[in-house]
C-alpha cells in the first residue's frame, strides 16, 4: 500500500527488528490459540460487547468502523490511524517485545507479514474459520497471508500492477504507449530527447518497486521454508530486469526523484514524470495528491517482458491481522472479517480502495466504474485483468522490512554511482544473507 521504503528511520526500523528478534522465542504460546472458535462463539461475543483497538492507516476503515459499530452497538472500535510504514512497524514491534499496549487488530503490509508470523507475533486465524475463505480472494494476496495451513491475516486490498501514463505528454510528443519493456525503453529515449526536462519515470531506488518488477519478470529471488531461506538474484528473470533498467539508468532516463515526496507529486502533476508502474490502488492517490492533472492520466496494462505475455505482479497491499498478544480475539476477528470479507468491502471499494476479493473484482459494477480522473476510462477492467495474471508463487523474506531498509545502501548505489544494478543486487543479496544468518536463519545462497 504505502511503497516508500523509509530511509529516514532506517536505524529505527533496525532497532525494532532487533528488539523483535530478541524476544522472538519468548513470545506467547501459539498452542493456546489453536482451539477452534465457532461462529456461535463470535456471535455471543458480539452480543456481549467490548472494545477493539485497531492500528491501521487505511483511510476507508473509518467508515467501516462506524458501520460496524452501528450494526453491533455494544462493540467499540478504537481506531488509531495516524501512522503508516516504518513508524507503524516500530510501534508494533516495540509493543510486542514489551508485551504491553499491543493492539487487538493491526494492519500489516504483505511484505512485512512474514516477519511477524515467523516470530509468533500474530495469531493463526484458521481456527476462527479464516481458512474457509481462501476461494474468496485472488491468488496473490491470499498466498501472501497464508503459510501452510496457517492464516495470518485477511487481505484488505491488493495492488495488481498497471502502467499509469500521462496521455497529454504522450500525445504531445506522439509517443505510442509501450506494451513491452523494450518499447518502454524506446519511449523513454524519445520522450527525454523531445523534452530534456521530462522523464519516463522516477526511480531513485525503491525496494518495493524492484521486487515487484522481479516478480513480474519471473524472478523468484526468495525461497522461504520456515526458517530455511534461499536468496538468489541471479536467475533469468532478474537478468531481464537488469538489462532494461540498467539502460534506463545509464542513459539517465529516470528522474532522480523519490516516490511520495512533494517533488514526486509535482512531477506527476506537471508532466515531467510521464509514467508510473505501480499498484491499482494508485487512482485514489492521483485524486487527492495530483488534483490539477485530472484528465491527463490514463491506465494501461503493465508492459510485458516478452510481447504478448500476460504476467503481472503485486505492488503493495496490506492485511488486517490479530497480534498474538491482543485481547478480545473473537471481537477482533469479527471486525477483521466484517472489514475484509463481509460488508466492509463494499464500503471500502466505494471510497476508492482496491479489493482483493474475486467477487468484487469480477462484478460488472466494479468493472464498469468510470474514472473521471482518467477521462472516463473504465480502468478497473485493466486492474482486474492484472490481478488475475499475478503469479502466486512469490514470497518475501521473513525479514523483508530489514532487507528493504538496506536496499539503498546496496542496490541504491547503482542509481547514483558507477555500480551496476547486477552488482547492487549481489551486494543486497550478500547483506541479506549475512543478516539472515545473524538472526538464526539457515540461509542457502
Amino acid at each position: 500500500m504505502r511503497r516508500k521504503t523509509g530511509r529516514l528511520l532506517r536505524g529505527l526500523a533496525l532497532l525494532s527488528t532487533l528488539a523483535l528478534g530478541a524476544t522472538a522465542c519468548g513470545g506467547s504460546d501459539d498452542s493456546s490459540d489453536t482451539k477452534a472458535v465457532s461462529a456461535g462463539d463470535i456471535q455471543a461475543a458480539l452480543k456481549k460487547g467490548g472494545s477493539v483497538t485497531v492500528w491501521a492507516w487505511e483511510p476507508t476503515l473509518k467508515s467501516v468502523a462506524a458501520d460496524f459499530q452501528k450494526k453491533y452497538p455494544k462493540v467499540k472500535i478504537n481506531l488509531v490511524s495516524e501512522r503508516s510504514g516504518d513508524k507503524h512497524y516500530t510501534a508494533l514491534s516495540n509493543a510486542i517485545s514489551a508485551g504491553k499496549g499491543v493492539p487487538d487488530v493491526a494492519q500489516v503490509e504483505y511484505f512485512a507479514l512474514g516477519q511477524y508470523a515467523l516470530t509468533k507475533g500474530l495469531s493463526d486465524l484458521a481456527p476462527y474459520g479464516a481458512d474457509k475463505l481462501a476461494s474468496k480472494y485472488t491468488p496473490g494476496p491470499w498466498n501472501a497471508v497464508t503459510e501452510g495451513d496457517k492464516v495470518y491475516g485477511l487481505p484488505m486490498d491488493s495492488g495488481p500492477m498497471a502502467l499509469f501514463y500521462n496521455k497529454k505528454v504522450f500525445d504531445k510528443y506522439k509517443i505510442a504507449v509501450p506494451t513491452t519493456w523494450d518499447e518502454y525503453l524506446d519511449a523513454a529515449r524519445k520522450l527525454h530527447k523531445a523534452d530534456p526536462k521530462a522523464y519516463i519515470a522516477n526511480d531513485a531506488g525503491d525496494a518495493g518497486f524492484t521486487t515487484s518488477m522481479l516478480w513480474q519478470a519471473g524472478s523468484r529471488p526468495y525461497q522461504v521454508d520456515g526458517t530455511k531461506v534461499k536468496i538468489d538474484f541471479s536467475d533469468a528473470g532478474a537478468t531481464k530486469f537488469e538489462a532494461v533498467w540498467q539502460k534506463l539508468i545509464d542513459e539517465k532516463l529516470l528522474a532522480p526523484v523519490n516516490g511520495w515526496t512533494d517533488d514526486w507529486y509535482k512531477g506527476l502533476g506537471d508532466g515531467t514524470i510521464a509514467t508510473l508502474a505501480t499498484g491499482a490502488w494508485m487512482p485514489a492517490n492521483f485524486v487527492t495528491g495530483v488534483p490539477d492533472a485530472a484528465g491527463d492520466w490514463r491506465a494501461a496494462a503493465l508492459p510485458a517482458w516478452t510481447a504478448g505475455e500476460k504476467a503481472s505482479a503485486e505492488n503493495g497491499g496490506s492485511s488486517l491481522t490479530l497480534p498474538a498478544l491482543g485481547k478480545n480475539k473473537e471481537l477482533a476477528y469479527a471486525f477483521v472479517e466484517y472489514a475484509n470479507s463481509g460488508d466492509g468491502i463494499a464500503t471500502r471499494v466505494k471510497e476508492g480502495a482496491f479489493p482483493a476479493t474475486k467477487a468484487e473484482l469480477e462484478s460488472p459494477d466494479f468493472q464498469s466504474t468510470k474514472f473521471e480522473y482518467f477521462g472516463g476510462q473504465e480502468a478497473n477492467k485493466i486492474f482486474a485483468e492484472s490481478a488475475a495474471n499475478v503469479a502466486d508463487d512469490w514470497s518475501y523474506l521473513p525479514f523483508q522490512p530489514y532487507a528493504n531498509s538496506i536496499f539503498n545502501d546496496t542496490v541504491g548505489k547503482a542509481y547514483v554511482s558507477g555500480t551496476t544494478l547486477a552488482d547492487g543486487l549481489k551486494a543486497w543479496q550478500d547483506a541479506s544473507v549475512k543478516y539472515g544468518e545473524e538472526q538464526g536463519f539457515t540461509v542457502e545462497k
Partner: protein
Amino acid sequence: MSSPLTTASPAAPAEPAGPGRRAPRLRRPRGGHQPGRPKRSVLLTVLASLVVLYTVVPLIWLAVNATKTQSGLADSSGLWFARDFALWDNVRETFTYDDGVFTRWLLNTLLYVVLGAGGATLLAVLGGYALAKFAFPGKRGIFALVIGAVAVPGTALAVPTFLMFSKMGLTDTPWAVIIPSLVSPFGLYLMWVFATEAIPTELLEAARIDGAGEARTFFRVALPLLAPGIVTVLLFTTVATWNNYFLPLIMLKDPDWYPLTLGLSAWNSQAETIGGDVIFNLVITGSLLTILPLIAAFLLLQKYWQSGLSAGSVKE
C-alpha cells in the same frame, strides 16, 4: 565553552599570509584601539554572511511557502510567491483540520515544555549549585558521570527507556515524555560551571556569617546571580523538548498526546498512504506556526542568555 561574542577578534585566521605581515596594523582606523569595537575582518564577514544565508534561506522558504495552496505549491517556484495568497486560509485550516487536533498538539507541546524543560532547568540549577559550592564525598565520581552522560545521545537510550517505561505501565501517557525530559546532563554541567564562576564563595560565606540559612542563602544570594545561566539552560532545554521527536515517537501511540513534531510528521505521512489526504500546505504552515514560539522565546530572552554565555569568561 568558547564565547561566540569574541569571534571578531584580530587574532582570527583572517591573514594566513604568515608572520611578519604588518598590514593589519596600518589598516586600523584612526583613533587607535577601541575595546568596544573590534576590528572588522572581510573573510569573517563573508563567512558569517554565508552562515546567515544558510540558516535564513530555509526560514524564508518556510514563510513564503506557507502562503501557498496545495496546488500552488506544486506549480510555483520554491522561493517566490504563487499567484494566490493563502496564508490566512492555511492558518485557519491548520487549526481546524481534523477537528482542530493541531491545537491539542500545541497544548501538549506546551505541557511537555513547561513540565519537562522547566523541571529539567530546576533540577539543573539545584544540582549545579550544590556541585559548585558544596564539598561532599563522591563529587569527582559525579563529575565523571555527568561528563559521560553529556556524551551519550538521547537516541541511544530511547529503546531501553521505552522498555523500562513499558514495564512501569507509563508508555502512551504524557509522563513517558515528561520524565525523561527532566534529565539534562548538559544543563547540569552548564549550571555547575556557571555557578562556580558567577557566585563568589566569599559572598556565600558572608551570607552565612550574617546568619542566613542555606535556603535563604540560595534564594536571596545565589539565585539572582544565577539568573543569566538559568535563562540559558532554560532555552536549551526548551528547544530540546520543543523539538523532541524520537522519544515521543516510540513512547506515544495515541495521537491525542502527540507533540507538534509527531503531529506534523503524521500529517506529512498522509501523503504516503493510499487515499490519504495530501496536505503539504498544512504541514508547511503548521511548521511555521511551530517555530514561532521558539523564535519569540529567543528574541525575548536574548539579552539574558547572551550575558549568561560570556559571564565568567573574563577574570576580574
